[in-house]
């Protein structure tokens, strides 16, 4: 199971422009402030873990970063362009929260769902050989080539997550954003899933992961951001453990879950 297969074409161009650049952004739902003067950059090739308590604005910040919401003040840039005007949809692979449970009831096969990754490039018309190759490579990269004709709802939680990752890989996205992707996935599959993310990150894919399990983030992410309306920390996972940012953000004495591998 190698992630390299998806990047068989010339290696991703590593530009120095941040993939996401959030500058002094505030956002409120009505009178309720959700994000307050947050500034953060995601550099190409980073694996950013975004943590914070429930209702801390993690998903909102993600939506702002992807240009799905407009900030009240401040600016968000995606690949150097204003996020809300950015239109190269194929560069963003997004696995929304609970996306996988919604697909449960739907009569959709693994291949159909992964093929959606090519839709931004080809909304109408026949798929080219390149399209089909990208889909096959994506299926292979996450190890679900043998499940292509299965209905997504019949798969296990762990397999289903891989289908959604494959959709982003089929798009040949430069940024993979995941919002609490392993809710309801058994522990063993979760670990394999995060190993897969780490592999994909090693191959050059920029990853933005929202996680409630801080242990996962400190283990796999290259950068950690701790949010509770304001940004309490942004930097190295090791430094994060050493500081009291976690306690400050959560307001209680939280402990980093120990992971023994």
């Amino acid at each position, binding site marked *: 199971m190698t992630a390299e297969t998806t990047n068989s074409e010339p290696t991703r161009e590593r530009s120095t422009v941040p993939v996401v650049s959030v500058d002094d952004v505030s956002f409120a739902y009505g009178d309720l402030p959700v994000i307050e003067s947050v500034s953060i950059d995601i550099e190409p090739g980073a694996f950013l873990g975004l943590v914070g308590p429930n209702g801390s604005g993690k998903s909102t910040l993600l939506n702002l970063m992807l240009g799905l919401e407009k900030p009240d003040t401040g600016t968000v840039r995606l690949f150097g362009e204003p996020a809300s005007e950015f*239109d190269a949809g*194929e560069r963003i692979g997004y696995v929304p929260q609970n996306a996988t449970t919604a697909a449960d009831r*739907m*009569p959709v*096969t693994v291949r*159909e*769902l992964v093929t*959606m990754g090519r839709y931004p490039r080809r909304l109408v018309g026949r798929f080219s050989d390149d399209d089909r190759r990208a889909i096959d490579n994506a299926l292979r990269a996450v190890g679900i080539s043998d499940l292509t004709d299965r209905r997504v709802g019949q798969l296990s939680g762990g397999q289903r997550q891989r289908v959604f990752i494959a*959709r982003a890989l089929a798009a040949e996205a430069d940024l993979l*954003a995941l919002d609490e992707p392993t809710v309801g996935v058994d522990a063993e599959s979760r670990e394999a899933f995060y190993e897969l993310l780490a592999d994909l990150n090693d191959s050059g894919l920029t990853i933005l992961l929202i996680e409630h399990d801080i242990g996962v983030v400190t283990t796999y992410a290259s950068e950690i951001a701790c949010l509770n309306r304001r940004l309490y920390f942004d930097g190295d996972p090791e430094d994060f453990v050493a500081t009291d940012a976690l306690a400050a953000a959560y307001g209680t004495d939280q402990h980093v879950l120990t992971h023994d591998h």
Partner: protein
Amino acid sequence: MMTSHSLVTVLLQASADRLSPIEGLWRLFEWLLVYVYGAGMNLLSELLGVRMLGYPYMQRAYLAGACIAVIGPLVGTFLVHREMSMLADTLAHTAFAGVAVGLFLNAALSLSLSPLLTAMIVAIGTALLVELLIEYAGAYSDTSLAIVLTTGFALGSVLITATDGGIAVGIDAYLFGSLSTVSKENVGLLVAMSFLIGTLVTVAYRPLLYVTVDATAARAARINVRLYKRLMVVLTALVVVSAMQIMGVILVAAMLVVPVATAGFVAQSFKQSILLAILAAEFAVLSGVTIAYVYGLAAGGSIVLSAAAVYVTVLVVAKADTRWLLRSLPRRTDQSIEHTQQGLEADGGERE
């Protein structure tokens, strides 16, 4: 005899009469309906010895039903899997208000609007209004649909009673539908709608599917989610109004929902689900129309009952089948796994 009705004569006559393209198409359609489809059905009637297939009004009923059985599930599959089945019913009931508005305006202002046109306008308007409410209020609400549905129907019933001779136009025909009164125009509308809806769904298939399965990801992929959601509800309005006269306001929604739910039990892929739903609907329509004719029953009701019968049958078979399959599958026992592991360990031991 044949020459005077040949396609060439019809087309020549049409151009000689300086008809507009629409009128020309209508002539062509009439010709196809009578001399191709009708003649084919007459032949079938003689071959099978089934007399009802030879009656022009039955021929029209079968054709109209067949069209409904295509467009209903085609649009309904997206609607049902977006969990908005009730929208079809709501639009049908407000379309009834649209019919009433047309009749009322005609009587009050002595216009000659087609009630079908006003129904179409009101249904599309309501569809977009509901979609806008969802966009701005956030959630799709059962309650708001129930309010729109009943208000629309109430408006319809009030306007009908306010219209002189309103009852004379046959409210029953709109409420319960009617097969015996399917006119050439009804069939023409359904055939034209089938082409229009079929084309739209084919062209917009990918974004419609993406939006149905995962709207949030579709938005992140820069697909115009609002546009395609609106298209989906407008298509629903078109189907409901086109099929309303045959199926009846009260029952028409069934054609967008029941066959789709049936197909959902067995289909693996989305495309397969659309095809199976159309098959289920065609079966329901053909058997429903036939039963209605033979026993002199209401056609709309017969069609929906046979669709429901197919649903229950598939439900029972699918559930029974999986249970039977589960029992017949060789159990994956922990024992066998233990054996292999022991075997491997034993092997390793020997080598050392």
